[in-house]
């Protein structure tokens, strides 16, 4: 990072999105991460996606746990409310927040330590509940903020900076999420923005729990030779199974494509995810075969990326809760306080 503040002045000719905002309007405070940290690229991709989607910044809430990754919500969308909560517990905060106001969009940012160790239970149960949110794990196979201990996503084959052996098999975030019934599961790479941005756009448009596991190298503690979460390793072993284009509602009409090449997945608010398979063997709609593919390719040392699984037919938590349209946090006495008659009835029943 550098400590020189960006000028507040905005060039009048900066391009504007649908709602008249420039990219600058989606930026956040200056990053305090290490120069070159993968996480900063993910923040940039989020900014890009939000700009492209024309999200109103203040109608989005950004939540996180604790870690270098969890710090990043400060570094994008400074007009959004943010909540940097406690280690591993962001999913519960997001669950409660999303019930309180269905009118906002929710992005959760977490790390592999935050979600695969201390937060594994909450992460799994947020998936199971199909909480309406985009959940991004900035996965570097290490505990960045506490200086480089192995995390639970670290590959068995990976060695530490000082050559330490990792004795445990990794938890594969994507396979676990698919197993637990997640309805949108993707893997990205912080070094591949072209792939990542449409994944984020799609994840934000998905109504339910959308997970993106982004391999996001830690340049300080886990970017050495021998690490399977280094820039070089991932670049060399990246196996993109799916190219994803996000087609917003307004562009729908202009979209031209060759049926044979792409499959369209229709999202709720008229947006579409356009998937082009890069590997014919891959079937993103079938959980079990996706799992098998992931396992096989992991064994071969490949990092499978792209939209790995999507199911738009699920019932999300908002549906399950059968909420009224108006956000709960806007309901007032008239909506919430029972009538005198109902109170009288309670009293009367309690007279047996």
């Amino acid at each position, binding site marked *: 990072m550098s400590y020189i503040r960006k000028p507040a002045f905005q060039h009048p000719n900066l391009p504007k999105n649908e709602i008249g905002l420039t990219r600058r309007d989606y930026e956040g405070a200056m990053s305090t991460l290490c120069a070159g940290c993968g996480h900063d690229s993910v923040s940039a991709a989020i900014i890009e996606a939000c700009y492209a989607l024309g999200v109103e910044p*203040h109608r989005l809430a950004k*939540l996180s746990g604790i870690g270098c990754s969890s710090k990043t919500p*400060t570094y994008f969308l400074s*007009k959004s409310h*943010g909540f940097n909560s406690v280690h591993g517990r962001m999913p519960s905060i997001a669950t409660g927040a999303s*019930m309180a*106001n269905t009118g906002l969009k929710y992005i959760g940012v977490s790390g592999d330590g935050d979600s695969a160790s201390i937060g594994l239970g909450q992460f799994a149960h947020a998936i199971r509940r199909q909480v309406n949110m985009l959940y991004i794990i900035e996965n570097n196979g290490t505990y960045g903020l506490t200086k480089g201990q192995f995390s639970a996503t670290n590959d068995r084959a990976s060695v530490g900076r000082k050559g330490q052996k990792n004795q445990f098999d990794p938890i594969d975030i994507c396979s676990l999420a698919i197993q637990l019934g997640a309805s949108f599961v993707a893997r990205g790479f912080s070094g591949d923005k072209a792939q990542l941005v449409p994944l984020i756009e799609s994840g934000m448009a998905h109504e339910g729990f959308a997970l993106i596991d982004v391999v996001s190298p830690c340049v300080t503690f886990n970017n050495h030779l021998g690490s399977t979460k280094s820039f070089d390793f991932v670049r060399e072993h990246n196996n993109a199974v799916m190219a994803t284009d996000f087609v917003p509602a307004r562009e729908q009409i202009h979209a031209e494509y060759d049926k044979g090449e792409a499959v369209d997945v229709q999202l709720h608010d008229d947006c579409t995810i356009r998937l082009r398979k890069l590997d014919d063997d891959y079937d993103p709609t079938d959980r079990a075969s996706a799992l098998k593919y992931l396992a096989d390719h992991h064994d071969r040392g490949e990092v499978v990326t792209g939209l790995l699984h999507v199911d738009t037919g699920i019932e999300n938590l908002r549906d399950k809760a059968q909420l009224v349209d108006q956000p709960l946090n806007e309901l007032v*006495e008239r909506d*919430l306080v029972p009538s005198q008659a109902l109170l009288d009835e309670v009293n009367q029943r309690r*007279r047996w």
Partner: protein
Amino acid sequence: MAALNAINEFVIRFANVNGSGSASANVMFAKIVYRMGVPVAPKNIFPSNIQGLPTWFEARVSAKGHLGRREGVDLMVAMNPQTFAEDLADVVPGGYLLYDSTFEQRISRTDVNVIGVPLTRLCLEAFEDPRQRQLFKNVAYVGALAAFLDIDFEAVKEVVSLQFRGKEKLVGPNIQALELGRDYALRHYDCPLGLRVEKCDAVGDKIMIDGNSAAALGCVFGGATVAAWYPITPSTSVAEAFERYCERMRVDEKTGEHKYAIIQAEDELAAIGMAIGANWNGARGFTATSGPGISLMTEFLGLAYFAEIPLVLFNVQRGGPSTGMPTRTQQSDITACAYASHGDTKQMLLFPSEPNECFNMSADAFDYADRLQTPIIVMSDLDLGMNDWVCDPFEWDQERRFDRGKVLDAEALDKIEKFGRYRDVDGDGICYRTYPGTHPEKGAFFTRGTSRDNYAVYTEDGDVHAENLRRLNRKFDTGAKILPGPEFGQESQRSTIGIIYFGTTATAMPEALEQLEDQDIIVDTMRIRAFPFALEVAEFVRAHETVYIIEQNRDAQMRMLLMNECDLAPDKMKKILNYDGMPVTARFIAENIAAAVKPGARQGGVAAE
């Protein structure tokens, strides 16, 4: 042998096996007494299992309104052969023992009036279905009691028909079973006994309800929309009652849609996280738990305190430490709650004493939480939460408005130059907040558990941190002004002796005071209703030479708060401590105080220190 004589003043206890269907029969008995206008305080003394272990149901009947627990049983309904000897031993001399004489029992006492009713045989003869034969034994003893206690059989029938509202075909067989017992009693015994229930109007328009249901109803009226919880005895019924009330009162009639969200979380950490998330986002959210859950919520309670997020948390206290006595009552989480979390953290507490107060305090708690932007922990207990209590009916001022505290909407934000989430504009330690999504340009801020400046920006500046901690103390002082002050038993001071109590201990107090007065011990009383303490609390202690603090815990936890927060001298603050898991009795209080006041007077039960 002398037999007890008493009208509308006695203790009856039912000894049963749990899961045998006795609960509803016993509750029926309590309701009958209540319907006759006689105050009654039932208490379930149940094991931490589901079926097959001894369980007791005790009802204090008292037209005088002495509804605290009392030692000794006047009438024992001994239905559990496993505990028969023990149950027999608990009967006061001259008391009565009713048992199922189908089976022979060794009765080793001669100072108890023993009444046998062959309940099993009667039901075997009268019913076909094995399940009915089993269940109606219980109903039959209620019938027998109606005869023994001179209860108006119309009242009995009334309760039965109310109890089976909607399941009318159960009414007939129940009445049949009741008559079975009654008729046997009338035929074989001189009815009534010395103990009798007589119609009176000591109940008035009072209702009978458990504290957890009352608290849940308070949440509905208080505008709670998000409830997140994890099952745990004895708090489970707060969430379950909230769900029932919401289904009745908060479902949109046309669309069937919900004006509430209830989430059974995966554990207590998640439950409180969800409640915090909801409150952060501008909804009123709560959670309910008991001891072990409180411990698990500790980290999040610190976050809510420090990031200043409103939250209502019900702690229905049970017997600790650890898993402890999960089906017994205590007031032993006071320290754990008041100072929950690492670092310099202080939480605000409310202490309801009976269901009506549960209702009001729980509705108020949401206002307090919003106004003070901090967790409000409602400190109930198992006795209050799970037992039925006779209390005033609930009232609600339909004109009342939620007090959401200092929240800036878009219009207000437009008017100010720069919003600072943690700026103490008014000097009361309470700052202005915004809900997410309020304004496109202004009002967004970053909520965090780390140190930050007045604009919610992360800082490692020690002076800023220290000043923020001091402001939080100012807010705490403001809390002492906003939260309910103590309740005094007298208009003005009349004694050098003061008694301090709180929560469910209140129910034993009137009787304890009478017993003390009988010994010419006149005292002043103060009931604490909230922490931080209002100024009067310390004044009361200072104004008295000796103060007895009655607590249902071992470590005199409230006394510690008093000493620490008000800098009160320890010498004059005497401990009266009951921690055996049973509600404290008037006699325990009175004897211990009398013994301390007049050395030589008898001291009983679990010792005062």
